[in-house]
């Protein structure tokens, strides 16, 4: 499925903002991304499997707050980096 990656993570994806991920859940897709782009998952998800405060995940435009959200191959995952201040 398509996964859209924000610029703060482009150093892992060699500058690509759209990559392909595989898995039947958000969690599985993020592990798959980490396999392809080592280190990318820990920058988004902490060691207790919590989504980091400034990372937001959307599936087909809907906010996803848990990693066990099931996915179909046609789904689109958007990773959004949200930060305010200077």
């Amino acid at each position, binding site marked *: 499925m398509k996964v859209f990656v*924000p610029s*703060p*993570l482009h150093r892992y994806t060699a500058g690509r903002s759209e990559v392909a991920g595989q898995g039947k859940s958000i969690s599985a897709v993020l592990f798959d991304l980490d396999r392809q782009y*080592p*280190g990318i998952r*820990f*920058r*988004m*998800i*902490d*060691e*207790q*499997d*919590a989504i*980091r405060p*400034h*990372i937001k995940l959307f599936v087909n435009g809907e906010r996803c707050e848990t990693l066990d959200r099931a996915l179909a191959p046609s789904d689109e995952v958007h990773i959004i*980096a*949200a*930060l305010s*201040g200077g």
Partner: protein
Amino acid sequence: MAMAKGRAGTAKRAAGTAKRSVAPATGSTNKKSVGKSAKKAATKKAVARKAPARAATPARGTSARSARPASAPWRVQPPKGRPVLLVGTRKGAFLFYGDDARKSWKLDGPHFLGNLVQHLVLDPRDGKTILMAASAGHLGPTVFRSSDRGKSWKEAAQPPAFPKMPEGEKGRSVKKVFWLTPGHASQPGTWFAGTSPEGLFRTDDGGNTWSPVSGLNDHPMLATWIGEGGTPDGVFTHSILVDPRDANHMYLSFSTAGTFESFDGGGDWMPLNRGVATDFIPGPAPEYGQDPHCVVLAPSNSDRLYQQNHCGIYRLDRPGDRWVRIGDNMPRKIKDIGFPIVVHPRHADTAWVFPMDGSDVWPRTCIEGKPAAYRTQNGGKSWQRQDKGFPRANAWWTVKRQAMCGDWHEPFGLYFGTTQGELWMSRNEGESWAMIQSGLPEIWSVSFGYLR
């Protein structure tokens, strides 16, 4: 800030009082008070944390103390190589390559522009490996490594992280890698990292893979030492020190718990805070709950420690375990509050601080907007103001705890960075100061090394 500190302090003090009976592990003078109840309490907590091995550690720590080397002299080998200043900022890392005379500095950077660089340190053992504790506004904390003097960087394959707790149990997550310390000279590739929240991590492969130091992170007393108050920014683990005489003898400090000592390479820890004030809470200072800002070991005498604390400047001469408030000898108008402290590499009685305003709501700026370092040459009995070259007024910046350091040259050179992005140096032991660079982002750390 002061209010938050007060609330935190109350909780800490309560915990401190309850725990006094466990003090045995802290020093020989309290050995008689190693009560059954204290041991039972520690054991009970260890079981609750599913760390049964910890129950035996108090005895191990006590016996290890007796094996501590006496105050033996040793030779300090001054490092050689090309001077480099490593500057960590709120918006990236900068390297400054110096010449032998330390008169010109070539800026290299920014590296990792926009990243939050907490600490940047050159490995004195090989003169070419640099570790960087970093995160980004959006992203979690990590460590970047360079094994070619900063030319190229790789991320740690396994950055510092706490173990994943079973479902339903609350586990800790590293929010910041705050501090980096190269390990003992006899252990090339070993480094220690201090985190926020409280945690100690170790690598033995030059920073590529990091493991939690269970002896601290799972210590049955850790939660009690830290207390439940804390500050909104979290607890910082800092000033990790390794005794040059003995790789197993270590110190570290927490911003809400005080200074702690290990004699077995981090397997067990004991508070080391006697004599250190806690002005932010009522009553006598507890055994722990202090707020050290920066603790250093004199390079020429490993039995001499200095501490710049939230509540004063202190000196400790081992094997003694009571800190002496040498900040009482500072001018009354200046007082003895600040973040950094630096010791002369060859003269253990000579040290520098950079006082800040700790009055009222804690502005934490240069006092009256007039920057000055203060130097002692007699172990803190007296202090001299050193401000030649600094602005005479309207300098409202702060020097943070990791942002002041020294080199090994003769005469000794001092360096510091400010929260307003200015990098300063003195080539003559603080007699006069000159700015190396302005306009950098807010500086969080400045360290010195010799590239080889």
